[in-house]
């Protein structure tokens, strides 16, 4: 039986893992390679590394980080942040990533999704979408607005229609972050997640708002998520992906255990 994935997310800045709430008050949280290996050992089903301050100058640092992180990592490994062209993606794959996540650059030029998919396969392209409910829209959830630049800049795109376009262009998965829930620890936006998940035929990874094990149970059941991103949960009481998955299994969620 297919299991629900728990994906450990590492935010990286200047070659170091950082912790912070909504991109401010960043605190050093260690070496990416060490942290990724630890998460894999402790049961994470997949690792995502996001370069949160991706700059042109920082590209080489990121590639070095990806190379070091990938070296001894034998679970799926996705890298995002600052991938603007198919060439950028090729370098990240060459360094050892299995998937890349694209966000702003794909909104600026949606053919980037087609281009990466053509060269590396749909399974290698994750389209990350940051969305915020739009109270003025006819349907505030399905028409949640898509944002770029870490949630600072609205694009006018609507979450369901953008997710569908991404799928049609060859995205393999959607990584959906609720800007409303992100950082709140009050739970995922299950309505938003379900609206997207039920509108596309590709897997949806839920992100933003996890504070308790119950929130994960909820986003898999009500939110129809195929996977969920776990980041700060590991700093607040849940010690590892394994213990999170053991709790999920008790609640009836199918997960990879033992792991």
């Amino acid at each position, binding site marked *: *039986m*297919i*299991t*629900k*994935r728990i994906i450990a997310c590492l935010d990286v800045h200047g070659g170091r893992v950082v912790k912070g709430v909504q991109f401010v008050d960043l605190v050093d949280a260690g070496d990416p390679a060490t942290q990724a290996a630890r998460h*894999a050992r402790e049961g994470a*089903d997949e690792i995502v590394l996001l370069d949160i301050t991706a700059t042109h100058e920082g590209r080489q640092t990121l590639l070095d980080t990806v190379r070091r992180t*990938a*070296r*001894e990592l*034998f*679970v*799926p490994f996705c890298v995002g942040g600052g991938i603007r062209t198919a060439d950028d993606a090729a370098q990240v*794959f*060459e*360094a*050892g990533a*299995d998937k890349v996540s694209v966000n702003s650059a794909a909104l600026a030029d949606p053919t980037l999704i087609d281009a990466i998919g053509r060269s*590396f*396969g*749909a*399974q*290698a392209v994750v389209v990350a979408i940051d969305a915020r409910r739009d109270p003025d829209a006819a349907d505030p959830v399905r028409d949640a607005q898509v944002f770029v630049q870490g949630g600072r800049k609205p694009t006018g795109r609507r979450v369901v229609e953008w997710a569908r376009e991404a799928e049609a262009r060859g995205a*393999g*998965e959607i990584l959906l972050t609720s800007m409303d829930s992100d950082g709140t620890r009050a739970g995922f936006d299950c309505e938003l997640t379900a609206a997207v998940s039920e509108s596309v*035929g*590709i*897997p949806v990874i839920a992100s933003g708002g996890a504070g308790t094990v119950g929130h994960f149970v909820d986003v898999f059941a009500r939110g129809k998520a*195929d*996977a969920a991103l776990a980041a700060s949960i590991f700093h607040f009481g849940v010690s590892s992906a394994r213990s999170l998955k053991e709790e999920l299994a008790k609640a009836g969620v199918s997960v*990879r255990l*033992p*792991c």
Partner: protein
Amino acid sequence: MRVTVIDYKAGNLTSVLKVLRHLGAEPEVTDADLAPVEAAERLVLPGVGHFAATERLDATGLTAAIRAAIARGVPFLGICVGMQWLYAGSSEAPEQRGLGHFAESCTRFAESTEKVPHVGWNSLEVRKGSRLLAGVEPGEYVYFTHSFKGPVTNDTAAITHYIEPFAAAVERGNVMGVQFHPEKSSATGLKILRNFLSWNAEGAE
């Protein structure tokens, strides 16, 4: 131990090369040169992406070289599209022939309410006698990402259930294939790759 990895420009090989080195093998890559295949001790055909990409194997003459190596008894492992290529073909690219080592063809998952591609960790029902999957216990999981799959037949080494039962692994003598990604399947994947690296004709029943 030398392992010849065939590059047919479908996806990237980094993960496969990395895991082979981790397991103590010395991978060499060939993308058009037939000599490494003709001298191969062990062959791996990885592959992510589209079945049509296997056209390159025909165009370069690699198909014939691989067929000869298999006939010589060289252990062969196809991964993902590399496994699908062992069949007669795939509905993903009907005009493109596979190796035909297994007579059946690969097809897309049937329409259903489940997501396609099948992405994530799923379990294996290992059939008795599989040497590739020796030591894989019920309830161990491996990582899949694919939309097409091979049918369950007598050559199926493991079955996985998603929408319908399909061949997660295929095995007949020195020819083996896995639909999942052992290079991404943590300890279980490493165990399966070790089995492949230690496979020899003497172990045959």
